[in-house]
């Protein structure tokens, strides 16, 4: 692991911990966050997933899981771990396509 594990954390630790070039993915992510586009995209995604019933499906899965395990024996971590693979797999292609399209057009509009 990195050497920062042993270093006691300070409240405003601004030290540069990247000793490598940022990947393209990181750069895109930073641009998305800085411009506020990521928030907008997230909201759009939320709306689409509600519309197509994905959210309700996930809710049902969570309920079933909680019922099986017992209400008081379930943690957030458990739930996330259980539904993440199913959730990722069941996203409709149309939603993926729409978001990809939006990200592309955003990138086209900002100088990279």
């Amino acid at each position, binding site marked *: 692991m990195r050497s920062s594990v042993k270093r006691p954390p300070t409240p405003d630790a601004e030290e540069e911990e990247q000793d490598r070039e940022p990947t393209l993915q990181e750069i895109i992510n930073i641009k998305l966050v800085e411009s506020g586009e990521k928030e907008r995209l997230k909201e759009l995604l939320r709306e689409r997933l509600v519309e197509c019933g994905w959210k309700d499906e996930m809710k049902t899965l969570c309920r079933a899981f909680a019922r099986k395990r017992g209400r008081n024996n379930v*943690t957030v*971590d*458990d739930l996330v771990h259980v539904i993440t693979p199913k959730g990722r797999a069941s996203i409709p292609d149309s939603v993926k396509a729409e978001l990809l399209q939006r990200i592309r057009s955003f990138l086209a509009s900002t100088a990279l």
Partner: protein
Amino acid sequence: MSSRNPSYSTPKECNHLTKYKLKHGLDGYYLIQEFVKTNPFGRTMIDKSKLELPRCSFCSGYQGRLYFCLICSSVTCCLSPGSDHTLLHSQSFDGHEIAVDLERAELYCSVCCDQVYDPDFDEVVMCKHMMELPRSENGDLRLCKRKRLNFGIDLDLRNVKRLVSLRDQWSKSCFPLGLRGLNNLGNTCFMNSVLQALLHAPPLRNYYLSGRHNREMCRKRSNDRLCLPCDIDVIFSAVFSGDRTPYSPAQFLYSWWQHSENLANYEQQDAHEFFISMLDRIHEKEGKASHAIRDYGDCQCIIHRAFSGLVRSDVTCASCGFTSSTYDPCVDISLDLDTHTSYPINVGKPSKLNESAGTSTLVGCLDLFTRLEKLGSDQKLYCENCQEKQDALKQLSIKKLPLVLCLHIKRFEHFPIKRLSRKIDRHLQFPFSLDMKPYLSSSVVRKKFGNRMFAFEGDESDSNTEFEVFAVVTHSGMLESGHYVTYLRLRNQWFKCDDAWITKVDEEVVRASQCYLLYYVQKVLYHKSSEDVSCLPMSPHADRFVPIAGCC
């Protein structure tokens, strides 16, 4: 849905949270409050810095769930049970168990690997949230409204005349028991219309018909000879006697004049005003506490048992977000007509106007009643937290629903500058079955605060939120001169009660009418009273030769 489990119950605190709070109190919460941000869509999150991406102190990752330690402010990530740097952090540093989810502004316990809840934390977050609600250009709060349903009912008012048909005399005797015309004693249609509605309010009707107000005992006990409940008892007996000839409630009118001298004349009066004064008079006589202090919360008189509800008023300071709630008892709810269109906010879609020019709906009026309202700057209220007068936000909701819900539609506008008042003739569409659940305090508050725990101090039992209309008092004409007519719904059949004339009508007539007072009763009571034998149509043979005066 099971009614055994309450839908919301505050989860128990994990002992790590308890330990943290004992040691640090609420300081950590207030420090982090500064960083609570509300995004333009109304979601709360923690935003330490707009310039930088938050990164995990172990792996510099920015993916997955990010947590912010409340003790040392370090950020750690949690991607999966196998890669849980938040847990690693709490293992490396003793006492650093409680963190805040950056994305959601929720408390998290690294050891329990679970979200934990603290009403105090939620309150801190919500205070900040309320201050930062997105505002439109003119400073009004813009809140995402529910999508409206468009009812497809097309009212063609010209068809109304066709639908009002008079049945022949035979069918009169097939009317349910308790239907009897009331003679107009000189502009007393305001009184007749309200009486008809009250005669068929299930709790009131059951009370009087089962002889709970004993006229004999009453006369002996009270000093003054006048007792409005006694006179009402007389009317109940007369109306439910089976006699179909129109009845003159003269004694009752005289009694009411004695109590309300300023209204003792033959001028036209307001039906709602009469309704309220009647409830007051009955309560005075029947209530345990005579005169003086009316303790609405505890009064068990028939009026309060039937009509009394509780309205919650939340006032929020626009500067610090501090909210104070008060509860006021009420026997009815006065609603303003919704004359404006709604503005549903859709991400990425243009807002649509979906209201036709001249129709309002009861649901719209109720939404208006429970809307979050920004009080004008001339109405600054004193805030305990800020210790000075501040701009405020107000929101009403219903804490406790009565058995009988009377909705009063405010059909008049006053122009103090021009010194005139005007009646609003706008048609109001109302449902026969009404679910009041969205207007309960629990629903309204939940909508405002999401899943924050502190807002729920014992949910009301919301199993009885469904209501059925049983009487509609309608007004036609102008503000100073008009006519009141009541429509009664007995066993799902509508009857028009126009002073002395009772006729059977179709529901379209009722829907097309201009409602002023709407009387709803809890669904359970409505169906129970429909099963009553007394509501069954009587055999036509019994009253064959009784002359029915006043019908045409």
